[in-house]
């Protein structure tokens, strides 16, 4: 034992000794290297072309050796600095041709240089078109053509501007061999250079996301049309914004139904920088494992593995000059709840009003830094420092986040216009703490990348990808992946709630119904006139692969018509969950089966509501299932996103202009539904236009009389008249000094007539994102009505409500 301890101590001491030695050596290397690189950097502006070539060769050798010792912070820093400088030297060598030479690759570079073809590349931004003109591998001209904000911005106008520019330069557009443009939000495809096809053009025209680059292909086509070019003119687009090469883990989010895509990053620049890094490191691109961070108007960070961007933090995840990036969920929800935030604001924050602009009211980092040095007061300076720290931290953490797949990484590069901002970049470098060699690639290589793709396409047509094929292949692969991601593992968890706990949402209602059904039995719902798409779809959902199993269904009506719909919508007629009952008279047959206890709840199918109600009423009356004092009425339960509890509205569907007597009965039916939702002392608001009795408003007088009829009741609180806002909004009730107990807390709204009821119901569902579940109460029998406009969730809720109500009305709440 003792010897082991001793050996351990000795080993540690040995390592310690070696470390001391190593770090001394590293420091020496760093000092030496820094001096050499620093010297070179200092002399850079005055180097002759020959000296540049010479320095590049020397530096490349140094990089080669440094690579072998990279790993420690000092060596990493040095390697990063050397690579940055090497890149700068390459930019300056061979008359500026070197970058493009590296990007197109060895086999194409020579013929392209010799061929000297004339090329135009461009990329549209919101307010301008950036363009460059190449001959062979030489960039002849580069420009940014701003368009007149007062003129309409169209593909035609931008094409005309480009042609005008060429004309000014004395370049005959007819001599162009190819046009390369930056692709926008096409359908998702892998990165690469695509030949412009009609399909690509169409997909861009109806892009899912608005982006200035969406116009590019239309401009290119317009150019081709105007030039009246021969068929030889090649049109390409490279690495569009909508690339997607994500690996499966990267597609997942914390919410199963939200799946990520790789789109919305500056792939053009990411890919170009990655290719350059590979060339500088003397590796194949596909073997270069790197992270590239593009810092400009939109920020994105991409992880390159095996030649693909397998993970990316896109322009919507990271804060940038105008985008907020991801914001904490809890605060967002709170903001929504408190009315401090809405969808429109969130949309603006994500696109145009977030990020730097929200902190500093500028979208210009340079201006910010400039102001910090000149003009800012102390607090402003502090804040600017904080902002710079924040953006640097976000960028560095995005880089580190992408390394969490645990695989080796050779190099990290930061690129884009913001790399010129020394104060920001130094902070990022500090954040990364020498964990990786960090290469700075200032500016964008978009034009070179576009030209490189185009040149490869001209000299190696096989390198061009077929847009439709790649799009469809990716779609199919994503589809297969989605199936894996959607594979059920355990059946949907019913959130078990305390018995008799009040039900506050439709989700809770569905769960509670599942529990009730499990405790009792699966009730059978008879669809009256099941030759009806809506009813079939609703019934399918209520039982989707046993996920919910809220009810079984008997489909009443014409056998072959029902069979045909079942076929069309994949409903499995198994004579257990779904059974067809062939009949000429679905209402008659439904009531017969109800009397025989073979069906428990009715649901409207193709039969007209009044037809069913007539038949049902006759049957209920004859069998004594509805008492003379009872009324058939409709209750809709609304789940409103901004409200903690649900609200019931009656009657929005069955009773058109009920008199006072009927409305009292409507209240009684609504109270049954409230009891089913375990609401202890439901608050019933008899709605009118105003909350005080007024002779000229008939409904206010009626409301007062109805409320009076319930004055002695202790099981509920009935008040009237109440206006809708007083009943639903506590703040309004307070402001209007409403004295009653229902100050914005109503559980039930009793409407004066079907018009008011329907308007309230439809306003809430269509304008506030509310979901509704409705039920008709006919004695002890609930009935489901659904309509084509109902959402899937709403149909399911209605079925759940009716099923649970069945047990409640028959056996008392279970």
């Amino acid at each position, binding site marked *: 034992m003792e010897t082991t301890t001793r050996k351990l101590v000795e080993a540690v001491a040995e390592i310690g000794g070696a470390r001391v030695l190593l770090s001394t050596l590293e420091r020496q290397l760093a000092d030496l290297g820094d001096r050499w690189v620093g010297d070179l950097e200092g002399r850079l502006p005055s180097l002759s072309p020959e000296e540049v070539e010479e320095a590049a060769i020397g530096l490349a050798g140094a990089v080669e050796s440094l690579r072998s010792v990279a790993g420690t912070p000092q060596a990493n820093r040095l390697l990063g600095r050397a690579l940055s400088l090497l890149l700068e030297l390459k930019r300056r060598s061979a008359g500026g041709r070197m970058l493009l030479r590296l990007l197109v690759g060895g086999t194409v570079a020579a013929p392209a240089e010799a061929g000297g073809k004339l090329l135009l590349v461009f990329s549209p931004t919101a307010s301008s078109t950036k363009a460059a003109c190449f001959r062979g591998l030489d960039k002849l001209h580069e420009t940014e053509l701003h368009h007149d904000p007062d003129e309409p911005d169209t593909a035609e106008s931008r094409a005309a501007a480009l042609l005008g520019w060429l004309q000014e330069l004395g370049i005959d557009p007819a001599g162009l061999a190819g046009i390369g443009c930056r692709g926008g939000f096409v359908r998702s495809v892998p990165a690469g250079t695509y030949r412009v096809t009609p399909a690509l053009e169409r997909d861009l025209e109806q892009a899912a996301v608005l982006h200035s680059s969406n116009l590019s292909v239309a401009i290119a086509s317009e150019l081709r049309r105007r030039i009246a070019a021969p068929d030889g003119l090649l049109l390409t687009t490279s690495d569009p914004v909508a690339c997607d090469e994500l690996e499966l883990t990267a597609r997942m989010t914390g919410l199963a139904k939200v799946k990520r895509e790789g789109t919305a990053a500056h792939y053009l620049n990411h890919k170009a920088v990655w290719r350059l890094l590979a060339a500088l490191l003397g590796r194949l691109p596909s073997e270069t494992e790197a992270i590239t961070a593009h810092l400009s108007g939109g920020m994105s960070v991409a992880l390159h593995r095996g030649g693909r961007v397998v993970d990316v933090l896109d322009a919507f995840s990271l804060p940038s000059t105008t985008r907020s990036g991801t914001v904490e969920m809890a605060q967002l929800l709170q903001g929504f709840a408190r009315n401090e935030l809405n969808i429109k604001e969130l949309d603006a924050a994500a696109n145009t009003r977030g990020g730097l602009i929200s902190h500093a009211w500028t979208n210009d980092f340079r201006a910010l830094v400039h102001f910090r040095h000149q003009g800012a007061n102390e607090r402003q300076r502090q804040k600017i420092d904080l902002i710079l720290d924040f953006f640097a931290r976000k960028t560095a953490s995005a880089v580190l986040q992408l390394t969490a797949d645990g695989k080796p990484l050779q190099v990290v590069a930061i690129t884009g216009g913001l790399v010129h901002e020394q104060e920001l970049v130094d902070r990022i470098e500090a954040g990364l703490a020498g964990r990786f060699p960090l290469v700075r690639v200032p500016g964008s290589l978009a034009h070179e990348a576009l030209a490189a793709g185009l040149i490869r396409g001209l000299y190696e047509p096989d390198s061009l990808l077929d847009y*439709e094929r790649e799009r469809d292949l990716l779609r199919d692969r994503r589809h297969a992946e989605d199936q894996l991601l959607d594979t059920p593992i355990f059946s949907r968890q019913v959130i078990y709630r305390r018995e008799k706990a009040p039900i506050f949402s439709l989700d809770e209602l569905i769960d509670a119904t599942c529990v009730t059904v499990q405790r009792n039995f699966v009730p059978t719902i008879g669809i009256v006139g099941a030759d009806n798409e809506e009813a079939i779809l609703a019934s399918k959902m209520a039982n989707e692969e046993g996920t919910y199993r809220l009810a079984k269904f008997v489909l009443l009506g014409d*056998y072959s018509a029902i069979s045909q719909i079942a*076929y*069309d919508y994949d*409903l*499995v007629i198994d004579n257990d969950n779904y059974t067809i009952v062939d009949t000429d008279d679905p209402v008659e047959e439904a009531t017969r089966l109800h009397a025989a206890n073979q069906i428990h709840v009715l649901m409207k199918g193709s039969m007209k509501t009044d037809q069913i109600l007539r038949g049902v009423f006759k049957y209920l009356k004859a069998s004594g299932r509805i008492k003379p004092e009872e009324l058939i009425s409709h209750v809709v339960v609304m789940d409103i996103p901004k409200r903690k509890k649900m609200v019931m509205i009656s009657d929005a569907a069955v009773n058109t202009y009920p008199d006072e007597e009927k409305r009292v009965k409507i209240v009684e039916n609504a109270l049954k539904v409230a009891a089913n939702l375990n609401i202890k002392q439901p608050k019933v608001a008899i709605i009118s236009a105003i909350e005080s009795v007024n002779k000229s408003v008939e409904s206010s007088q009626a409301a007062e009389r109805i409320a009076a009829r319930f004055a002695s009741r202790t099981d509920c609180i009935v008040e009237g008249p109440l206006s809708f806002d007083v009943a639903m909004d506590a703040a309004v009730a307070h402001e209007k000094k409403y004295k009653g107990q229902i100050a914005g807390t109503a559980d039930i709204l009793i409407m004066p007539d079907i018009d008011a009821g329907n308007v309230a119901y439809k306003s809430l569902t269509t304008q506030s994102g509310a979901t509704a579940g409705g039920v008709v109460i006919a004695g002890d029998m609930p009935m489901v009505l659904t309509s084509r406009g109902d959402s899937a969730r709403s149909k399911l809720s209605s079925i759940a409500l009716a099923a649970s109500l069945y047990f409640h009305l028959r056996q008392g709440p279970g």
Partner: protein
Amino acid sequence: MSLGERPPSAEHSLTGFAGPSSRPTTLAELQRLQEASLADREGYWRSQASRLRWSTAFTQISDEELREGRVRWFSGGQLKATDNVFGPLADAGRLDLPALLVSLPGGGLTPISYRELQSEVLALAAALAARGLQPGDRLACFLPDGQAAIALALACAHLGLIEVPVNIEHPFDVAHAILANCDASLLVIAGEDCSGGVGGQLQDAFGPERTVVVGHAADPRSPSYADLLAAGRFLPPPPAVAVDAEHPLCLLYPGAGTSIPRGAVFATGGFLVQAGSSYDDLFCLAGPRSTGDALLCTLPLASAAGLAYGLWGPLLHGACLVLSPAGEGLAATALAQLAEACPGLALLCSPRLLARLRQELGEGHLPASAQLGLVAACGDVLPPRLVAFAGAALTGLPERVLNLWIQRATGVALIASLPAGELNRPGALGLAALGVEPRVLNDAGEVCRPNESGQLVFASSWPAMVRGLWGQPERYWERYFSRIPGCFVTNDGARVDREGFFWGMGRLDDRIKVAGRSLSTSEVESTLAGHPRIAEAAVVGFSGDEGGSLVSFLVARELAVGEDEPPEAEGLRLELARYLQMRLGEFAVPARLVFVRELPRTRSGKVVRRVLRRIATGDVSQDEDWSAVANPGALQDLVRQSGR
């Protein structure tokens, strides 16, 4: 091995199909038989074929490659059709059995014996031969079903002529196109105008000299049927012609139509073998209420069911065909009269007739003495309520109401309920016949799980199956075999339950009247899909104020479809219209050809036709719940388009 469980009869047996027998009554028994018949499919069909008399024994049972649309049965074999009808009876000395029971115009019934029928057939055959008709020539019959039509069918078979029964309800242009398509040598029409003057028009168009008139011939140039018979009786009876098993027995033309009619060709050997065995399996019941000796078929002889069960099946069994001029218009009282005259009478009809009888009888039923031995329905869905009605009011026994699943191209019923409690489920199509292999496949071509609905196909051929489309061999493959390689496609939706019952889930195509012609959308669909630039096609039909119209939704290759149509779409549209016009006719060109990026499908891959139909009629809105559709994006594109 047949359902009849008869000891296998010797080759060239004299007894043929005659004689009822015991049959399976439980599912387990039937499933055993089904399995055995498929385990040794050739053996099964050999034993069925041996119930016929063959002049030359066949050397091969079946020779098929469905991928190529090649089907042959009983190669090398030769047979004489009429010998198989009259031979066994003559040998048994039973030619005096009634072959037909004919209703007399003034009321009452008169039997025609097999001997009388044979003599009429021989006289006819002699007269036809004397007119120079050769084996393989087509003889078209535009006649109401009755004695003459039956005798003509037999006479044709006797001489190896190909009979072409043309439905009497066809309008002139359809009937005329059929005559032209089959290149008939002789036409037989009815003298009494029972076709709204179409017979006369046909006579004029076809040539009075080549037209025989049953009854009074208005045109002196046309011989009458009676003249023909009279002349034939003076001639020596021609010997029956032994034809190859694959020699066409008859051509059946659909009423639906394309301007180029398609005559389904049936082979003599295969059709007779399976019509005989199927009739035995479905209609011949032993016991106290035995059936199979008399059959009333109200379906036209110009249909597969009519040919198999209203003609050849019963005649091969020495049974009596009860003829009623009312056809599908038969009234309950007339039915009762016939049933009383023929105990154990079986009725083969369409569900429509049953629905009408149900209306007529209400809660009533046929008198006990006039109850039918069996009711079989085919041609349309037989809903459970009609089964219940027929069981209570017509047969008195619910299990004696059968559904037969048959299509023109199948020749005989391949799926049917059987007259035993356990083997008959109201509403079901029934159980698979022995020796055939129905499958329900999803759109990916995989076999569906129990109760999952998909399309009904057959994985192997059967003897009575259609052998070709007259004069259009390439369309045969395209129509039946191109959609799912290796399978015969029926265009029916179905499911199979755990016990093996097939349930109909509707047609996969719409039948719609366009410009006065009944047209099936699947035909237009398969034609469009045959165009090299079309990847997928779905055609839906709907009836509007100006009659029916078709709308086609197409996924075209190399055509990028977006918000607006690409300019080249118009050219393609014209090209497709021309293509359809040439292959199917002007009226088959859809009113609209809509190019789409993809067709909306359910999760199992079915094209959601119901929604397409609504889109075609504009009955959709943007904010519907499309959760049932696997690619709602495709649908939303369409809804947007239709909204403009």
